[in-house]
Every structure is written in C-alpha cells, then in structure tokens.
C-alpha cells in the first residue's frame, strides 16, 4: 500500500526522519533507515536541515526508494528559485518519489553558511500551489508539461506558536493550496496540543504530532530559549536532570507523549536528531 493509500485508509500513521550527513559517507544513514524498516510508514529526508550544507534530500530519497523504503522528500524554498524547485520536483517523480513535504525553510543566517544568498522565491504555500500545478500538467509559467507528476503533499505547522492565530491562518492557506497531511513541530505539552487540534479539526486533514527525543536537560533548556513555539515543561526537564540513564529516560518520555497524543491525532512523526537508533525502542515502548 502506498503512503497516500495508507493516509486515505485512516490507519494511524508513523513517520520518522533521517538527516543527510555533511560529507559523502552515508552508510550510517542507510543503517539507521534499515532499523526503521517495517516500523514506520514513511521516512522524511530533511533538506539541508538547520540551513547547514550537506548531501541533498533528493539523492537520499532516491537511495531509500531503491532499497524499498517509502521516502518523503522534504523541499525548502531557501536555496532554490522557482525553476530549480520545479525541476527537482519533476526529477523526484521521475525517480519514483511520490511524497513531498513543502516547507519555507530556515533562514541561511541560522546555519553554517550565514553569508549565503537567501532565495525564498516561493514560500511553503506557493510551493504547494506549484506542485499542484505541475500535477495539472503545467509549470508556473503556464507552459505545458510532457508527462505530469503525481505527489502526496504534506506541510508543517507549529501548534505551540505564539501568537497562534497567524500560524493558523497560514495553516489554512496550506490546506487550501492542497496539503494532504500535516507534520507538526515538537510537542511536549498535551494541553496546548488539545487546544490546537480543537481549532483545526474543521479542516479534516490528517495531523501527525511531532516527537523530538530529549537528549538532556540542557537540550530542553536550549530549545525553550531558542526554538520558536517549543516549550519543554519543567517536570520533563527535571526527569532528564535526575535520571541516571538519559537514554532510557528519553525513550520513556517520548513513549509517554506518544500515548497521550495518539488519541488526539492521526499519526506521529518522530524526529530523533542524531538518536536515530533509538526510534525502534521508542516505538516498542509506545506499543506501536
């Protein structure tokens, strides 16, 4: 069953992600992906995550596809103008990649090449529109295509954003533009997530709650200070501080969050941020 069909079937969806390395050695990434085989419905491949120069998402998606995984091609608008974005989308389809996650992307000044020219010719909303247009057989300049792609298109939202309203309006624009599923930023506060779900359930789009593995109390504090709309509550920070086994505690917290969030949404998206090998353990602990 394709990812799109699974989405339609109403099955509870599990996705995770792999981040391409800086450099040409990708055997660790392929090993990590192997551990996810049979455990997840699709694997996101990040696109120069954190605005850091790395191996590209498209090539890694292709390798995953060759090995029988179901990749989700993450595409940001940071580094490519509308020609390059459309071209990469056509290329992806030619390679058999059927799922795309459309994002605006972090600004380059946050990454390791802060001198780079920020592109942002399109944004997440217009990128989704561009994908839908390619599917209709035309490019953004209204030129007809010889053969058209077909994608399952996702987008992201940050349920913890302050203020939430402008992000909700943007969310609505993404749905109107044609997003078929939504993966969220990391969620640590179930009550805030309940409020978010309450406000978006009218759109009837599957939402996968984001789970980021906490590696330490320090990481939690760092995110609270620096990551927009992510707040790790004190009790979780305390648990990470007091534990003797950070890894076991992190897995326990992630599994607990998944159990709390599962009845509220249609899937979960696990972002291991380097702790890729722990994803199967999290799924075990969560009973998935």
């Amino acid at each position, binding site marked *: 069953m394709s990812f799109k069909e699974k989405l339609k079937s109403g099955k509870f969806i599990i996705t995770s992600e792999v981040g391409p390395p800086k450099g040409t050695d990708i055997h660790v990434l392929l090993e990590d992906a192997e551990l996810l085989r049979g455990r997840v419905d699709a694997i996101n491949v990040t696109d120069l995550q954190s605005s850091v120069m790395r191996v590209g998402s498209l090539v890694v998606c292709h390798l995953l596809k060759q090995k029988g995984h179901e990749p989700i091609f993450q595409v940001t608008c940071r580094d490519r103008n509308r020609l390059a974005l459309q071209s990469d989308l056509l290329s992806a389809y030619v390679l058999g990649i059927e799922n795309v996650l459309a994002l605006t992307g972090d600004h380059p000044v946050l990454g390791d090449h802060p001198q780079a020219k920020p592109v*942002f010719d399109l944004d997440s909303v217009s990128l989704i529109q561009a994908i839908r247009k390619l599917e209709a057989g035309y490019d953004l300049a209204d030129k007809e295509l010889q053969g058209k792609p077909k994608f399952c298109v996702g987008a992201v939202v940050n349920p913890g954003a302050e203020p939430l309203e402008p992000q909700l*309006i*943007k969310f*609505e624009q993404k749905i109107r533009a044609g997003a078929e599923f939504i993966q969220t930023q990391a969620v640590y506060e179930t009550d805030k997530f309940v409020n978010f779900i309450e406000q978006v359930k009218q759109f009837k789009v599957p939402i996968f709650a984001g789970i980021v593995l906490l590696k330490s109390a320090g990481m939690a504090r760092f995110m609270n200070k620096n990551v*927009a709309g992510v707040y790790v509550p004190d009790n979780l920070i305390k648990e990470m501080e007091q534990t003797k086994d950070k890894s076991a505690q992190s897995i326990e917290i992630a599994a607990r969050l998944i159990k709390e969030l599962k009845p509220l949404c249609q899937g979960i998206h696990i972002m291991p941020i380097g702790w890729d090998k722990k994803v199967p353990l999290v799924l075990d602990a969560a009973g998935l």
Partner: protein
Amino acid sequence: MLVSELKSMDEIKEILKQEQKIFFLACLGCSDACKSSSKEELDNLEEALKSDGKTITGRVDVDFLCNKVLVKIKFLRNKDKWEGADSILVFSCGVGVQAVSKIIRKTVYPAANTKNLGGFQGVWPGEERCAQCGNCVLDLTAGICPYTSCAKSMLNGPCGGSNEGECEVEKGRDCGWYLIYERLKAINKLADFKKIRPLRDHSRMLPKKETRGLDFYAIDR
C-alpha cells in the same frame, strides 16, 4: 529619485472593490516627476471611480510623502477632509504609502508600483523601506511591505520561525508578518491576511531601456 508607475485601471478597481468612500493623497515628489501622481491621472481615475458608483471624498497633495513634517502639516491637519473616507489611495512610491499607513489607522492603498531607484532616495527610508520591486502589494498587507520587513521576503507569511512577534534571524528584529497581522487586525481587515498572494514578478525590477537612458539614472553620461 524613486521611479513609480501608476497601476492599471483594472488593478486599482480590483483593489478598491470593497471600498465606497475613497480619499486621494498624492505625492508631488518623485512620483509627480514620473507622472504617477499628476493631476491628469488623478482626474482620470476620479472620473472612472465615480462612474463605478464610488465617492471621492477629497484630495490632498503633499510635496514629499517621505518627509514626516510635511505629511503632518499637510495631511494630518486636513483631517476633516479624509476622516469620513473608508480608505486612502496613495499616489506615491512604496515609501510614501508605508509612511502614511504608519501614522493613521485607516486602510491605505498603493496607486502605483515602485519600479526602481533612479538617483536619490526619498528622505524617510529608514523605517519604512521600499524595495522598488514593481509588484506593490501594500494594499493586501496593511501598508507594511512584506518584501522589506520579512527577512525571507515572504508573500505568504509568517514562517515557523516567528516567535512572539520576533524574527528567527535576529533577537530584537520584528517579524514583518506579525506586524502585518497586528495591523490588519487593528483595521478590521484580517480577511486580507487569509488571501494567498500571487507570485512576484522579479523581472519588473529590471530598469527599462528608457529609464537607463535618462540622465538621472546614468549620472556619468
């Protein structure tokens, strides 16, 4: 000098579709020199809008809309003339439109597209900058330019990096889309926020041959 070009009649009519009473504010600086705020153009437009059933409540000219003192003297002091209008149509470059939107709590619309910088810039560019992009969308963004106020120049914002009104790029930098959101809310135009804005045409930023041939453009000729 900022080179501006009056938007097409169709575009202006579309922008003013929901408006009934409109006030004209014209800049006699650069835009007058580019004929995008000339009396003739204003007369034509007034005629066309009236025949569509709109009311033009009045007109004020200001020598330079980029000059705060002049705006305060000539525009704010004529409050009786524009107070009753639903919105202000501003005949100027993007700096002038943003200058006006900053000082009054009314919907402000751009009548022109600002094309490119042709010599010297207006004198109020510090806070309200204009990218001279030729795709003016200030009508949809409450008179705050998303190209210059958003670090990513996004047309559909904010991005996920917006945090309590602050931009992800730098502490203390305002998120332009948060400012647009707040202002649209204040003037009851949040519906504009929901619109998906069309793609920008970057080719409009390229100066035309006739502009490049002008003395003020090529100072070394």
